[in-house]
């Protein structure tokens, strides 16, 4: 296994692991934003840049997607690497000057403000890392949202900037957004969930037993598509919230133990 020397700490990692993996193993913190284990490395945000020692020369590389193939020496806390990452952070702060998540990471990196003029309110907060579009495409296979425009007009948007047809309002984009720009809005009056700012809306499934809101209806339907066995029991369990589902399963188990077949089992 190749050895990675990070700031004088030596760790062994699997062939093909990334510098970020090695850093995690070594206990060295490298800031990340566009990195998420659920998707392939995006390497779009550039906040994880480190300096790779190539002997005669040194090179800045993104730690999140640089594969370790042989023994390498990497500097995370060296002047060049720190300067590069701070420079990137200053640009990002210009896009999201009031973002608490970003400010927290910036603080940890020793950046407290940006020298650059901030962007217009309409473009504010999104750092264009592409994690939301990647999760929608790679994990959900929907690609309901994508990038639009280019240069200063680049933005994440649904096609034609309308409520996306392909969106199932699963909320994965919200879950992965590193700066909390994508948000879920609950519409109490209509029992709908809205993914902001994409204007996507869907009815929420309510637990048949206790009435708790579970997931959006299209998400439940999409998940059931992946269940290959056509078993009514599963479809019935899917109508419950996780808590009621556990209670139902426990009851069923207890009944099995005592030998009395329940209604559930005879179906």
């Amino acid at each position, binding site marked *: 296994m190749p050895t990675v020397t990070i700031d004088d700490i030596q760790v062994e990692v699997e062939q093909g692991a990334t510098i970020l993996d090695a850093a995690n193993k070594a206990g060295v913190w490298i800031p990340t934003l566009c990195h998420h284990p659920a998707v392939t490395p995006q390497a779009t945000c550039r906040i994880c840049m480190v300096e790779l020692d190539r002997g005669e020369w040194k090179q800045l590389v993104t730690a999140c997607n640089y594969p370790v193939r042989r023994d390498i020496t990497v500097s995370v806390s060296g002047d060049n690497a720190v300067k590069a990452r701070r420079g990137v952070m200053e640009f990002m702060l210009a896009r999201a000057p009031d973002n608490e998540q970003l400010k927290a990471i910036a603080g940890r990196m020793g950046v407290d403000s940006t020298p650059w003029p901030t962007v217009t309110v309409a473009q504010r907060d999104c750092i264009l890392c592409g994690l939301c*579009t990647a999760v929608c*495409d790679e994990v959900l296979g*929907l*690609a*309901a*949202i*994508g*990038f*639009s*425009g*280019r240069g200063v*007009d680049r933005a994440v*948007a*649904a*096609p*034609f900037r309308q409520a*996306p*047809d*392909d969106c199932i309002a699963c909320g994965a984009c919200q879950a992965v957004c590193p700066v909390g720009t994508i948000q879920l809005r609950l519409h109490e009056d209509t029992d709908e969930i809205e993914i902001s700012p994409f204007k996507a809306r869907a009815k929420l499934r309510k637990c048949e037993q206790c009435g708790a809101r579970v997931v959006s209806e299209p998400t439940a339907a999409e998940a059931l598509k992946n269940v290959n066995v056509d078993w009514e029991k599963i479809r019935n369990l899917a109508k419950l919230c996780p808590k009621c589902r556990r209670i139902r399963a426990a009851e069923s188990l207890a009944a099995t133990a005592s030998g009395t077949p329940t209604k559930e089992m005879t179906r």
Partner: protein
Amino acid sequence: MTEKTTTRDELIEDIIDRYDGETGMLIPMMQDLQTECGYLPADELRRLAERLDLPVSRLYAVATFYSSFRLAPKGLHEVTLCIGTVCYLKGAGRISEAICSEFQVEPGGTTPDGLFSYLPVNCVGACALAPVMIVDGEYHDGVSVDAAMEILRTLPAEEIDSEQEAQT
């Protein structure tokens, strides 16, 4: 141009066939679609995406990335305003603002009634005539805000010009 009787689906099929359904030829396909329709209509883009088994968001990303693709129909007339340095100093900025507010049009967009497409450009090489506004290829020089608005207000709302031009 294909005949107008060609249905939307036939048009899409035809365009896809031209490139053997190769998804790598998406841009040429979209260019052909724009040539046929004058712009990229949303329904046609959705249909194309469906047939190529690509997400609509991918086509939208391509359509918005390249400035030569347009998602709204071209207006009846084409209005180009020079906002190069000289024209700008001579008041082209104010003319642009006036056009945008009176006709509810954005730079690069088309008026809601489809009367004209408005495109501000950087220098048309006629600085001596500044500020310059070009309407359907006709140069108007030294225009003031009032003069420019007057020209646009009197634009014929029907396609008389081009048809007459075609006949002559």
